[in-house]
């Protein structure tokens, strides 16, 4: 068993409600995430898991509730502010930049830190060049960490699915987020790829101390790697606790596992 220092609450989601037209995607959801922990969100299809992540990093704007991140209380998040204050994100359906190489995709993760202006870039002046090299160094660490050195210059569209998922992770990681939101990082992978991905997630958590919020369908994985689990069903929270608590919660068993009483 891994031993980590789980800290204070870093992200607190309070009473979030989100609807599209008449469809209520989320209804009064609250939960918190502590620093350095691995927090899973589970629930059947259409439970509102991805919508939840989308609210946390500002892709969607909930009608009600507030989000507290690192002590800052906000009515809702906007994407740029979320990225700037340290929320990273991967996507359920790959959202890589298809026309760009692996290296360039991961380099975009550093864009927030790159400040040289258009003219300096165009003339390739000293500061622009130095900045590019400095960020490249960091990106190379990420590439090494994810073991994708061989594909550096390959257009991402040509990579197999499992590797694309890794690049997606790398792009988020390059931004050095405090909290990393992973939307089904292991969906569609074979056993070996899943093991690799598990290892990466745990290593990120251990080595960089990154807090992880993860949506996953594979119960084995969820129970293995997460510290606490939130269970959603039809936009409502029906369970919250350690894997063991959740596993034995009759409400969860009824709704999620589909086992009759």
């Amino acid at each position: 068993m891994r031993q980590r220092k789980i800290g204070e609450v870093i992200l607190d989601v309070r009473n979030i409600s989100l609807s599209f037209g008449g469809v209520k995607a989320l209804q009064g959801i609250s939960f918190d995430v502590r620093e350095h922990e691995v927090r899973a969100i589970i629930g059947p299809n259409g439970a509102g898991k991805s919508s939840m992540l989308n609210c946390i990093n500002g892709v969607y704007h909930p009608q009600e509730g507030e989000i507290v991140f690192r002590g800052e209380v906000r009515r809702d998040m906007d994407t740029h502010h979320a990225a700037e204050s340290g929320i990273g994100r991967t996507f359920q359906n790959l959202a890589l930049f298809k026309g760009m190489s692996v290296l360039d995709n991961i380099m975009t993760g550093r864009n927030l830190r790159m400040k040289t202006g258009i003219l300096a870039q165009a003339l390739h002046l000293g500061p622009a060049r130095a900045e590019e090299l400095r960020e490249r160094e960091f990106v190379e660490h990420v590439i090494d960490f994810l073991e994708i050195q061989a594909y550096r210059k390959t257009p991402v569209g040509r990579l197999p699915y499992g590797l694309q998922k890794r690049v997606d992770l790398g792009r988020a990681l390059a931004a050095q987020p405090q909290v990393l939101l992973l939307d089904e990082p292991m969906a569609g992978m074979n056993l070996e790829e899943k093991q690799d991905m598990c290892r990466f997630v745990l290593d990120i958590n251990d080595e960089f101390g990154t807090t992880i919020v993860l949506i996953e369908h594979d119960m084995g994985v969820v129970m293995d790697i997460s510290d606490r689990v939130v269970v959603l069903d039809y936009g409502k929270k029906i369970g919250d606790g350690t894997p063991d608590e959740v596993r034995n919660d009759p409400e969860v068993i009824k709704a999620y596992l589909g086992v009759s009483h």
Partner: protein
Amino acid sequence: MAAKKNGPVIALGAVLAAGLAAPLVTGSPLGFYLEVLIGGLMAGVLYSLVALGFVLIFKASGVFNFAQGAMVLFAALALARLAEWLPAWIGIPAGFPALTLAFVLAAGIMVGLAWVIERIVLRPLVAQDPVALLMATLGVTFFLDGFGQTIWGSDIYKIDLGISKDPTMILESMFQGGILVSKEDLIAAVIAAGLVILLALFFQKTATGRALRAVADDHQAAQSIGIPLNRIWVIVWAVAGFVALVAGMVWGAKLGVQFSLAQLALKALPVVILGGFTSIPGAIIGGLIIGVGEKMAEVFLGPPLVKMWDLAGGGIENWFAYVLALLFLMVRPEGLFGEKHIDRV
């Protein structure tokens, strides 16, 4: 977010209405004003006809068909030239019989063209990014412009519908001097209205029409219940080709068949922006708004502007439609009657 934002639309409508009323308030003679209004409505009917072709294709296949204008030109050229050649070829009398046969043949040609476009251009590009499809139709535009003029010739041709071009006076009892209306314009309006009714019947009452609407709603669902997408697309392009033929006929009769028709037809783009990409009533109302708006702007707003800024002539109607559409886009991107959609992540 959920509530429809109607404020900006109402504001824009109010500005347009004020613009519409302004000439009367500032003392333009009512008869002249009505003439301009009717002229604008007539032009609007023609824009609507072209816009209708756009909407049909966009609804069914999600393709933004830049080539609709080129199809109008191509159809008009075919009609004009066939009507001219047929009497010499097969000895049918010139005039109405030749024109009728030419219309049938031209309709056949447009259907064939639709089939070829679907086969060669659309099928290989299916499910591509809409911008790539737009560019493909740009290619079709250029090809048709060149091809049309190669086989049909590139002079200015006449389509003679046998209607006198002399204007008639109406409402003489109501206004001093009455209102001048061209009979041809009236016939054009009647033809356009007839076509719209025909299309509405086709969509509502026939099995093919129902299949078309199903495809427009949801491609995959339609395919899964056994509606053949490819055939539907051919039919839609053929119908759009037929609409182009009618538009070309009416327009060609009014202005002569020439290259600038294709350019004029570009005005259908702002029309569909205004009306919404997927709405047939939107195409018609949008066309009328733009037709009236640009005529009014040209006649009543142009001269004071020219005077005020010492311009070298008017010509506001060249850009009025586009700028209006642009303003409208900023306040209501989905158009008057279009559907709003939400991006999913």
